[in-house]
């Protein structure tokens, strides 16, 4: 474990240098759009994180999780099979430069959509796949029930996330003070809370729910009800490749649309007999639609058959951790998920 950390730190420093070198060189090759690179390579390179439920390797070393399934869906959209995708975990610090330098084709690592990232960093974002908010995890015996009680507390944040900024904003807004401890190493970050070095840690609540499971006594800790910020987590890609962006958009939309229609991996074959022309277009029964947009007629069908619709992906990975659908329900159920029409 320690060796792994040391290695990661070494890699991180190397990545900073590599970023410099690759930005210099990437212009040389003048590689075409991302999709050309992906086709040439025969695999999609996806940057992910390491939060259980969202992305984590299982006991066989195979990546599993909520975001991972969207990576598999993309692989189906491009190659027709879920396995032509390489997942690599990347720290919050290094993932954005790595995407800029072309090390990844896409980040499915819980990146928050922000104005700066869109305008100044030149990233494009796909549809929000998870509506998150920054939370605060505290030890129960402190007797703290809301964020405002934390006046004067020491709060840990993981460096390189928007969390560091939001917590500063929150305390400034409420006129209270806190002492930050900013740690990059995930293990040390969790340890800081467990050992009492910090009173609370703050992070996207999706991440905190995952981190809570890594604590020795998860029940001694509680996630405060407030959300300090909106954290829409979306796939991020480097700018300048419209076709790749659309493919990402519509792959995510397909899983949402399928749920809206009630199409699941179990019943998708029955839907092939549907009389609804929209569903016929969607599942490729009528191949002209997919052909027109230059995709395999079976792309959406295979995604649903293999990975499932949005709801199935959520149930499979996040339900076991105690997540409720909440904002991440379909618009028809009072949530925020809404797919533009497939036509």
């Amino acid at each position: 474990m320690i060796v792994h950390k040391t290695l990661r730190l070494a890699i991180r420093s190397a990545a900073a240098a590599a970023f410099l070198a690759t930005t210099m060189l990437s212009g040389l090759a003048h590689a075409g759009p991302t999709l050309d690179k992906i086709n040439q390579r025969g695999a999609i390179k996806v940057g992910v994180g390491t939060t259980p439920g969202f992305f984590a390797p299982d006991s066989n070393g195979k990546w599993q999780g909520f975001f991972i399934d969207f990576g598999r869906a993309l692989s189906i959209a491009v190659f027709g099979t879920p396995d032509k995708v390489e997942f690599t975990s990347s720290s919050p610090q290094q993932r954005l430069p790595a995407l800029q330098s072309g090390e990844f084709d896409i980040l499915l690592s819980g990146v928050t959509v922000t104005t700066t990232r869109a305008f100044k960093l030149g990233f494009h974002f796909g549809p929000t796949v998870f509506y998150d908010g920054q939370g605060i995890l505290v030890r129960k015996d402190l007797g703290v029930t809301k964020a405002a009680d934390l006046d004067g507390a020491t709060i840990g944040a993981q460096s390189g996330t928007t969390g560091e900024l939001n917590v500063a904003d929150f305390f400034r807004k409420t006129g209270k003070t806190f002492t930050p401890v900013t740690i990059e190493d995930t293990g040390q970050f969790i340890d800081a809370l467990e050992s009492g070095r910090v009173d609370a840690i703050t992070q996207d609540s999706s991440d905190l729910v995952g981190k809570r499971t890594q604590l020795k006594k998860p029940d001694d800790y509680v996630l405060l009800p407030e959300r300090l910020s909106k954290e829409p987590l979306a796939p991020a890609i480097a700018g300048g490749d419209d076709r790749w962006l659309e493919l990402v958009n519509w792959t995510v939309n397909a899983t949402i649309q399928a749920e809206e229609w009630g199409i699941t991996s179990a019943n998708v074959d029955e839907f092939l007999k549907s009389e609804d022309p929209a569903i016929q277009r969607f599942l490729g029964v009528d191949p002209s639609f997919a052909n027109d947009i230059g995709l395999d007629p079976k792309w959406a069908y295979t995604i649903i058959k293999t990975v499932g619709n949005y709801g199935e992906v959520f149930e499979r990975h996040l339900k076991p951790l105690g997540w409720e659908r909440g904002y991440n329900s379909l618009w028809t159920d009072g949530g925020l998920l809404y797919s533009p029409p497939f036509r």
Partner: protein
Amino acid sequence: MVEKIRAWWGGWPLGQLAFLLAVGALGALFIANVLETMARIGILPGFGFLSSSANFEIGESPIAFRAGDTYRRAILAGLLNTLKVSLLGCVLATILGVAVGIAGLSRNLLLSRLVRWFIEITRNTPLLLQLFFWMALAKALPAPRQASALFGSVFLTNRGVYIPSLSLEGGPFGLAAALVLTGLASLAFILVLRAAGRLTRRSGTFAVMLALAAPLAFLVLSGARPAAELPALSGFNIRGGLNLSPEFAALLTGLVVKFAALIAEIVRAGIQSVGTGQWEAARALGLHDGQIIRLVVLPQALRVITPLTTSSYLDLTKDSSLAVAIGFPDLVSIVNTTANTTGQSLEALIILIGAFLTINLALSVLMNVYNNRVALRGSRR
């Protein structure tokens, strides 16, 4: 001058020229590509972001910093943190390193074996691992609410060590001025005496006493009284007094222990490089071991020790950047956060490279000046 140019030109002037041009062209190509790539992904190069406000907080800083101050000030705070830990690290590692190095040569087997073990263990494990170890030790102390006070007001907690602080009520600026003035005056006094060749132990002591007594007299006359601030538990934390944070303590301890082991080896090599004849001659003169080391061996050993120690100091300064892993807000940690929130990774890298280059080159120059002085000693005929 002509000689120099000829030497530089070498035997194959055309080859040299072609090589120079190739390096220049490659550099130009790199720069052009960086600019083009940045333009393509829409990043505006430049350091304008330094004046915008940084919206994050810094845990500990030698200068006052609030979220909303500029990035420039944030980076300055980080730089000062790095300088603080590096400077203290170099001084303490030298003291410990010399002591351990000399102890390692002791004829006392237990002592020299212990030193050997210490050196082997610290030299052959990664610094990051050692930092995690010190951090774990620091965090094993009780939490502030559980900590009981030693001697009434010293707290050892996992939030750091709290000790009472002494401050002055009334005229702290006057004190600073008095300190600086008497310091300069006594320095000038010493220099004048030295130039006149009349610096003796007595006149030197007099100058130092003057430097100490004058500010005290000034204080008493100006009515300032020392006031102690005692740390006490309030809310989540212990407040008041001086606090040494666990991150800083762990980083400093890690750096000092690791580099003390390296310096100890250098000191050992230096001492062993002095011929045994020197020891025998000194012993024949009736000097005891302490005197031999201090007066005969160390001055000669310094010729070997100084250049190697310089490179240890440079390494120590660079390795302080591992702070980011344990949460001490050093230069690298803050520049990383800056890069992440502004997206100006390239500029951030340039700032980092520039800062470390400046610190290390300055350190090298200082150490080389010192080296020139010790290198001459003993070799003058």
